[in-house]
């Protein structure tokens, strides 16, 4: 067995997985709280990437240094995407909170199509080059053939974001409120939690992680167009389901499992069937654990 090759595939899968994880977190948090699959989430990721592109283009014309551009672009993308996430929730989901779940789902699909076409019309249908905001580190050069500086930054950033998110949910007041709302919305409201505010915060946090993912992957791949959110969103959704939708550690684990599955199947068997294997694996897991790897199976309240 060639361990070097194995390591490369492992790291490739890890990078892919951490990108899926950044998007999957938004899906799973929203589902955990209002039991809605937010199909517009992939579009939030795409909007983050576009915002970063616009900001980065303007700033690099002003001749700022690369690292400052990366930070500014990232902050702008996060702020912009959060605003979109917040607005989407207020416009498309809040009025339907008491409606049957299917209505909100259709509203989510509508929102996804709306945002895609909005960016298509407001920007362009072409692929746009995305500047490589993450520099090639000199000290990393000896290892660049195994894992590039960009992939290293993606891995570390995702790790930091996930730790921060865990801290937010475990140890802060709003985190506690989020967990309470997820368990029982009515009871949470009775003990004085502003449920609407908690839901807004959830959308904002989810959008922020998606925007970070958008900037990182666009900078890694070097191109974006209005459609990137769709495929990334579908894959991240699969990852969230695989891990157990509604569970935050589940989303992260599911993303890594999906990333590795794709990477290893491609590496050792064939990339022709990359998606086939990924989905076969999903079906396989769901047969044995219908609620996902870490999901709790809930008995329906009658």
């Amino acid at each position: 067995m060639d361990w070097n090759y194995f390591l490369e595939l492992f790291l490739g899968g890890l990078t892919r997985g951490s990108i899926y994880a950044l998007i999957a977190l938004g899906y799973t948090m929203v589902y955990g709280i209002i039991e809605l699959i937010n199909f517009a989430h992939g579009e939030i990721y795409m909007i983050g990437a576009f915002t970063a592109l616009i900001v980065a283009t303007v700033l690099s014309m002003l001749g700022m240094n690369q690292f400052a551009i990366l930070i500014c672009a990232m902050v702008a993308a996060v702020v912009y995407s959060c605003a979109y996430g917040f607005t989407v929730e207020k416009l498309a989901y809040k009025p339907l909170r008491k409606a049957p779940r299917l209505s909100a789902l259709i509203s989510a699909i509508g929102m996804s199509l709306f945002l895609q076409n909005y960016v298509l019309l407001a920007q362009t249908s072409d692929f746009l080059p995305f500047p490589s905001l993450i520099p090639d580190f000199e000290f990393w050069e000896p290892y660049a053939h195994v894992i590039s500086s960009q992939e290293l930054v993606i891995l570390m950033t995702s790790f930091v974001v996930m730790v921060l998110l865990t801290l937010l949910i475990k140890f802060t007041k709003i985190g506690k409120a989020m967990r309470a709302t997820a368990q029982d919305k009515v009871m949470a409201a009775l003990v004085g939690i502003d449920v609407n505010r908690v839901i807004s915060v959830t959308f904002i946090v989810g959008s922020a992680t998606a925007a970070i993912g958008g900037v990182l992957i666009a900078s890694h791949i070097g191109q974006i167009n209005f459609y990137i959110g769709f495929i990334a969103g579908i894959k991240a959704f699969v990852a969230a389901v695989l891990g157990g939708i509604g569970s935050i550690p589940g989303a992260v684990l599911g993303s890594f499992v999906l990333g590795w599955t794709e990477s290893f199947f491609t590496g050792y068997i064939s990339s022709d069937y990359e998606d086939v294997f990924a989905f076969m694996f999903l079906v396989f897991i769901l047969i044995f654990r219908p609620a996902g790897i870490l999901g709790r199976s809930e008995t329906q309240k009658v």
Partner: protein
Amino acid sequence: MMKNRSKKWMITVVVGMLLCLLVPGLGFAADTIKLGVAGAHSGDLASYGIPSVRAAQIVVDEINAKGGVLGKQVELLAEDDVCKPEVATNTATKLLSKKVDVVLGHICSGATKAALGIYKDSKIIVMSPSATNPDLTQSGEYPNFYRTIASDDAQAKLDVDFALNVLKLKKIAVIHDKGDYGKGFAEFAKKFLEESGKAEVVLYEGVTPGAVDYSAVVQKVKQNKAEAVIYGGYHPEASKIVTQMRKKRMKTIFISDDGVKDDTFIKVAGKYSEGVYASGPKDCSQNPLNIAAVKAHKDKYGEAHGAFYENAYTATLALLNAIQKAGSTDYDAVSKALKTEWVETPIGKIRFDDRGDAIGAGFSVYQVQNGKYIELK
């Protein structure tokens, strides 16, 4: 008696009025020759389709200014198929309902194939500036189909010969995007490589278009110690693969088809595009007709023309010329004219063979040098 006469008179007037209404209608319908233009005019691949609409517009304007074809003005009807086979059938039906005489299009091979059957049933001649799938002409299923671009096997042959005889490579990975166009090209490349016996195909794989990254496939190329990748597909995936290879410090040579020979590829892949080889239609920039065609585009639209512009210009000229020579838009007469009458075009003097491929049009290998595709002689 009197009453009866006035009734007759009334009927005459009414019938007369109806006829009056009818005559200009008929006259108008027969007055123009309708040229349909189908292809991707929006979406991901619009950069392949828009140039053909512009080319047709420029040729038609020029010909109309000189009095048209057979004394009639030419009317342009553009329909978008976004390069999707399922949309292309609707596009074809729409053009037929508008009573087009001939069609320039479609752009992508998959969409063209889907639409051709519909045109064939209505006996409409279709000429594509860019659909290179070999089956379209070689299967003999579509006698109504012509193209002003050489087919994929010609292109694959050229790329393989280049890799073997000029670059002298021994280990080659063949990758495609699983689409009609990319896979067709890759299959031929693989076949020619194996037949030559000079090089080994160390990897033959398809990748999923639009995937988040291609690092696993790139690692596999490295693992198999391929000296070069021959890629069949379009520029979005090609630029991702090239970028990832270069970021992993791989110097693997990248050779591709005319789906990649597009300036968008250089724009998106940036510095990583340097040194990439791609085959595309022969450079005819010294041809006076070509110079005029390029200038006409620049004057009208204020920018450089995009992919397949010359081929579309040629196709429009060839179609209208054939109608002129045939003396009508009759299917059999025009078919005969296309196959027998030579026509001077921006890509050289051409006519069509029995299968519908252009005689006199061909491919060359290009390389990205200093941010531009340069033709290698």
